[in-house]
Structure formats: C-alpha cells, structure tokens
C-alpha cells in the first residue's frame, strides 16, 4: 500500500513525546532507582519447592526468630498451579551458609519432607560490582562500534541520528523496566544489548532506502521529500518485522517462565521503541544535521 504519511512535517509532535518519555525514564531510573538483582548487588537467592500449600505469611512465620527473618519472600513460577515455589532473597554474608539454616528452619516449621531446595545462587560483592562496570563498558563499546560502522557504511551525517535513536531506545526500555520495579539482572543486560542491535538494524534499513532514493530521485527533489518517501516506502516492512519480533517476545513473556519474564518485558518495550525511534527520531535528526552541513555527506548540494 502506498502511504503518504507526512513524517517529517509532524516531527516536533513526536519529538515532544520522545523527550517526555526519556525524561520520565530518567526519573524512574535515577530517582526511583533500578531494583538491582543479585547479579549486580551481590546476595543470595534461594528457590524452594513446597509439597504442601503455603503462602508468603506462612514462610515468614517459619523464618521468624532466625537470622534471616527479614528476607524477601516472593512467589515463584506462579502460573504453575500444581506446584508451590517461592524465591527467598538475602544479603550476602561472608562465610555464611544461609541455605542450610533456612532449609532447617522451614523444615522444622513445615515438615522437612515438604521442603525441597531447587536452586541456590550466591554472589559475592566483588563479582557484583565488577559486573556493573563490565555492563556499562559493554553498552558503551557496542554503541561506539556500531556508530563507527554506520559512519563508514553511510556517512557521518547519518550516524548521529542512529546513535540518538539507540540511546532513546535503551533509555526508554530501562525506564519502563525501572517503572515496573522488576529486578534488573544479567538477562536484562543481554536484552539491552540485543535492543541496541535491533534498533540499529531497523534504522539502517531506512537509511539504506534514503541513500538509494537520493541517488534515484532527480536532483531537484528536496531532501525532506526524499526522506518522507523513504519512510513511507519502508513502512510496511518496518511494521511487519516489528510484528514478527513482537510475536516472538510476547510468546517468551507468556511461556518463558519467571526466569525470562524480565528479559521478555524489556524486549517488548525495546521492540516498540526501536520501530518508533527509527521512524520518528533517526530520520528527522539526519535531516537536521544535513541542513546544518549542506556541503557534507551523501546528500551534499541537495535542496533541503
């Protein structure tokens, strides 16, 4: 279908929306704060399976009076109605063996044969803080490499738009995540890096079309027109691809279980943001920059 949506003309409306969303994200990330998981903060995560029905209150009661009575207790794998599982989160203590103590406390309250430790994760503070540093490094490195790549494949007027789109996507994904209050762990980091790759993916397809149209169209066509046209031409592809990736991550969200749920949520937001930023952010910024540097880049000399 040949659409003729005036993307560029309406760019300020979209820009405001984006700026609002990014500001909101920054607020949630820095003021409310991200709920860092055990991977980044260090700590202990225990998953128990109970053979008889028990709720959070019951578990707390069992832990009362012990060293770990202030532990976080969360229902795990809730959609599985036939099994009762709970996640217990604790702070890290050098040399302590929390699983033994908690298992025995639960056992004496609920019957030892009803308690089963499914998994135990202990992360020391050193590993946690190292990971934080590595994470930031990885995100920055990825973004930088991609920026350089775009710069060489297209030109450096195109590149900043791609990077801003990227930052926009990551920021909003993390912001929504912070808003949801979910735990930010290693899988979420993987999601962010994937979103970076995917967002650029999208942006490049548009840029490729713009590049092609610049060559194809008669030189009298203003750049604004070319960009609009390119956006419209690739619209169906952008929507369909977003749909297929969206289906995939929604399925992960529904069927992937508690361990992948955070990842899937982040990806869902990232996918939507990715397509949005491609259409409404990357291209207007490119146009803006080309206007500023009319003699540089692929579209040099073109009428804006």
């Amino acid at each position, binding site marked *: 279908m040949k659409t003729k949506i005036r993307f560029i003309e309406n760019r300020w409306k979209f820009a405001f929306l984006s700026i609002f969303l990014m500001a909101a994200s920054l607020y949630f990330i820095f003021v409310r704060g991200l709920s860092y998981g055990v991977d980044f903060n260090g700590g202990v995560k225990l*998953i128990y399976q109970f053979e008889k029905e028990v709720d959070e209150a019951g578990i707390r009661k069992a832990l009362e009076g012990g060293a770990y009575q202030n532990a976080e207790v969360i229902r795990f*794998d809730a959609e599985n109605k036939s099994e009762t599982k709970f996640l217990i989160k604790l702070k890290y203590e050098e*040399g302590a063996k929390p699983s033994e103590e908690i298992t025995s406390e639960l056992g004496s309250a609920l019957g030892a044969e009803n308690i*089963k*430790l*499914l*998994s*135990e*994760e202990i*992360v*020391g503070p*050193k*590993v946690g803080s190292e990971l934080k540093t*590595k994470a930031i*490094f*990885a995100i920055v490195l*990825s973004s930088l*490499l*991609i920026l350089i*790549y775009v710069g060489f*494949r297209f030109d450096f007027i195109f590149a900043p738009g791609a990077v801003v789109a990227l930052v926009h996507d990551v920021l909003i994904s993390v912001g929504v995540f912070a808003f949801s209050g979910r735990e930010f762990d*290693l*899988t979420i*980091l*993987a999601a962010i*890096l*994937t979103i*970076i*790759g*995917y967002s*650029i*993916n999208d942006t*490049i*397809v548009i840029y*490729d*079309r713009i*590049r*092609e149209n610049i*060559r194809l169209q008669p030189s009298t066509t203003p750049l604004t027109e070319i960009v609009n046209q390119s956006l419209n*031409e690739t619209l*169906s*592809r952008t929507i*369909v*691809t977003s*749909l*297929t*990736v*969206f*289906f*995939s*991550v929604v*399925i*992960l969200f529904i*069927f*992937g*279980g508690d*361990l*992948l749920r955070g*990842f*899937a949520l982040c990806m869902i937001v990232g996918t939507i943001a990715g397509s949005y930023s491609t259409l409404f952010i990357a291209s207007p910024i490119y146009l803006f920059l080309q206007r500023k540097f009319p003699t540089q880049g692929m579209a040099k000399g073109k009428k804006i």
Partner: protein
Amino acid sequence: MWPLSLKKRKKNNHPFGRDDPDIRRGRPRPYKSMQTLKTLLSAFLFLMGIYVLVPHVLPPLDDNSPWYRKLLPESGLSLGLDLQGGLYLEMDVDLKDAFQKHLDYLSGNIEKNLEDEKFAGLKIKKEDETLVVTLKKEDQDKFIEKLRTNYSGLFQYPPQEKTDENSSSLVFKLSDDYKNRFLDTTANQAIEAVRNRIDKYGVAEPSITRQGLNRLVVELPGLEDERIISIIQKTGQLEFRLVNKKISPDELFKKVKEYLEKNNLEKAVFTKDEVDGINAGLKATLPQDSEIIFEIKRDNLTKKPLTSIPFLVFKRVELTGNAIQDARVSTGQLGEPEVAFALDREGAKIFADLTEKNKGHQLAIVLDGNISSAPVIKNPITDGAGIITLGGLDRATQLKEAQDLVLVLKEGALPANLSLQAKTKIGPSLGADSIQKGLYSLLFAAAVIMVFMIAYYRGGGLIANLALIFNLLLIFAILALFKASLSLPGFAGIVLTMGMAVDANIIIFERMREEKRAGKTAKAIVESGYGNAMSAIIDSNLTTLISGVVLYQFGTGPIKGFATTLIIGIATTMFTGIIFTRIIYDWLIYGRKVKSLSI
C-alpha cells in the same frame, strides 16, 4: 535457456562491494552452474545437519553399538547448567599472596644456594615486594654478579642501596617481566590443579576457564554434592618448617592471649586473615624470620575445635608437599583415619639432612596454614616417610577428609589460595522445567510466525517458512558441532533469531511486492528484490552481530549461551534467508518457468 538471460544483464556490471553501487546489483550470472553450486551446498549443509543431530534421538555411542550407530558421531548438544542442573563456581586466585610466598621461598633459596660463596653475615629477607640483602660492603659487587648469573632475569639492576645505622643493604626489586610471568604461570597452575582434582573426583564434562588475570570459572554439570568445593579450595599446601625455640611456649601463649583479649579475637579457630592480623599486630615482639602459626586442638570425643595453640615457626620452608611422591589413607593408634605419605628421593635426602642437623628441635608439619603436628625430632628420619593427622568430627568425616587430602597431595598443592566469589547450584527439576518452557516458547513462536508469513506473503511466505525450518536445523546442528551448551537464555536467543530471520525475507519480499506493483516480470522481480535488499540485510545483520560479539566477550554462563545462539543465528539466517530462498526462486523462475509470483 540460459544464454538468453546473459543478454539481458549487460548493463548491470556493477561490482558488489565496498563502493555503493547504483541501482541494480547483480551481474552476468550463468544460472545453471551457480544454481547447482548453491543447491549442492544447501544439500551438503542439510545432510551435515542431519548427521550431527540424529545421534540425539539414538542411544549413546559405546562399544556395543551396532555398525550404523558407529557411523554417526556422539551427540554434541549439551545442556547448560541452568537446564541440566549442576554447580557453577567463580573463584579468585590469590595471586598477591602467592607472590609473597614466592618471595619467601626465593630468599631462603638464594641464601642456601650461595652458601658456598661464604658471604659472611648474609641475610636476605622479604619486605613488601622486594628482597633486602644485608652483607658486607666488600662482598656486594660479587653478590650482585652471582645473582645475575644464577638468577638471571629475576631482578632489576642496579639494586637500591639502603643505609641505616649500622649496616648497608641492597634492596632488590623483581623485574616486572618476571613478576608478570610468575603471576600468569601461577594462575595457570591453579587452573590445572583444579582441573586435575575435578577429573579425579569424577565429574562428567566439567568446564574450567580463566577469566581475566585471576578469576576461575568452574562449571560442573549434574553435580549436587558440594564436597567438591572444599576439595577444589583445599590448597593442600604442605610445608615442613622448624619451630623457633627463641620464645618459650608459655611466653608465646601469654603474648598471644593478651593480644587476642585486647582485640576481642578470642575464638577457637582463626581464619587466614585473622592469623595474618595477629602476626602483624605482634610483629614488633617477634623475631623477623619467624611467624605465629596455630595448631587446632580438638576434643577427643566430639572432635570439635576447642582452642588454637600458637607456635613460633621459622618462615623458611624446608620442604614442601611437592616432594611427596605418594600418599595413602592409613589408620592411627586409636583406629582413626590418617594420611601416610612418602617423599621422593631428593625430598627424602633433604628430610634426612634436616632431621640429623636439628635433633631435639620440633618439626612443624604445616597443612593449609595450620599446624597439623609438631613432633620433636629424636632421630634422623632416613626413609622419607611420615604421618599427617586429621581433625574431623567423626570417623566418617575423617575418612572423607583423609581421602580428599590424599587426592590433593597426589595431584599437587594449589599454588595459591582460591576464594569463592560466586556460587550457583541448580537442581535438576528446575532445569527440566526450564527446558520445557524453552521448547514450548520455541515451537509456539515458530508456529505463530509461520502462520503469519503464509497469511501475509502467501507463496513467498511458504518459501520463507521452509527457510525458517532449515535455519532452526542449522542452528542446532552448529551448536551440536561445536559442543556448545544450550541454556534458557539460549532458547530465548533462538526465538529472537527466528523473529529477526524472517526480517531478511520480509525486506526482500516487500521489495518484490514493490516491483510487482510496478508491473515487472517474475524474473525481474526476483532479481531486483534480492539485489536491492542485500546491502540493507548485510548492514543490519552485521550490526546485530557486533552487539552479539560484545555480549559474548563479557558474559558468562547462560548469557554466553544467549550470545552464542544469537551469533550463530545471524550466520544461518544469512544463508537460509538469502541463498537458500534464492535457490527456490531461481528454480521456480528458470526451472519451472513460473510467470507470476505469489507474494
């Protein structure tokens, strides 16, 4: 036939490469030979995929397998820890401490080796990361020369001169090159020692890798017993040192007790750091060449630690566990398990020498920083044999401890301490649950995508779906080929790859639809559809690859699995999405002479 198609493409001679070509890409292409080549390649990959994957539904390969089973390889796909259950450990190698110990060893070694030179009053001691050598001024030059020849490459020259009230000494700093090599070698030795112990313990398919300078990542699939952790961490460092009689046991005991009371450290057992602290605190009152090491006294019946008795022991190590040739579990006087060891020839000689020269002195057997026993040397021991006593809580634990110690002594001591930084233990039932979730997601996502593709792209959708199935086959085949392990995030990576794989096809199809709208022939549609989409597909996949590679580099465990499937997925997508589907289209156009495309 194909000569006709040659005529058509004359104007499109642009090379596909770095310079952005103009509108049409593509070049004179003899259809038949390229098509055959591509089809053969696809068939080969398909068969290879089957070859590598079929073993997973067959019984495992062993000596009794029938001949047709022997033709196929072992199943390569392995389940990651989060799917199979097992232990995941991250440990730091205490290289700093190892280096300090090495300096101690060097000081003793140099003194001993240069004994014949008769440097009067030669004393070497360790200070921070340097060796301070005190000797007569006249001897200094000769000493430096001897050091240069016998210990070339170790030290930086010239040494600093330090003069205090009475004497002048030389301060030797170790060369950076030597230090770095030592740290690197020590870390590698630690890995090897850990690997040996794990092998002896018996774990199926363990994985031990080094991360950075001093981090070890150990994966032990299928294991639930945490005993392995203490086996790995047991340094097994056995040292024979002499007890310093300068301070009487009573005086020493009083000094230490005072210190402990003052610093609120009264306990039965001390950690290594606490012992270091005690030594630092009492440094002024102790002779420079000795330190305090504790012996843990246990209750005879319950074997619980009662108290720790301090001993003043010379820092110099006379003999280490390296000299132990053999070790076995034996029984002591009261029937308790002990470890009997035998020294090798050179060790036995040194031991005989030592016991002869030091009759009446106490020989401290130091195991992992604590005194195991300190018998008085009555007679020279010439047969190089000895006993190490243990302190477990009960016979069964003692026996296990003895067995573990024998393993450690025989495999060799750890060159440095290992401190546990992270541990994850996953039970098999959680793993099985995750597999189920992973598979469901995969199958369901594939189904939804395939239905959508047919609904939206009709005939083209069917072709894309075939490519998708082939893609999945190749991804699993490559994982099996490289014996990579599948994790839950790995499944997520595959699901994601599927979503992105159809993207390549979508780009092509959308282009083809445009060309179809413009009224082109089937041939031209395919030609320009693929041609124009190529650069977009390659660029976009390469950038996803960049973030995949970065993730692979720094991720561990399950996340690495995710990065792996993502990277493999990109490669297979390029092949199945572009080349494979092109084969089908070319066959339709040139083989079946289809005139209009269902897209």
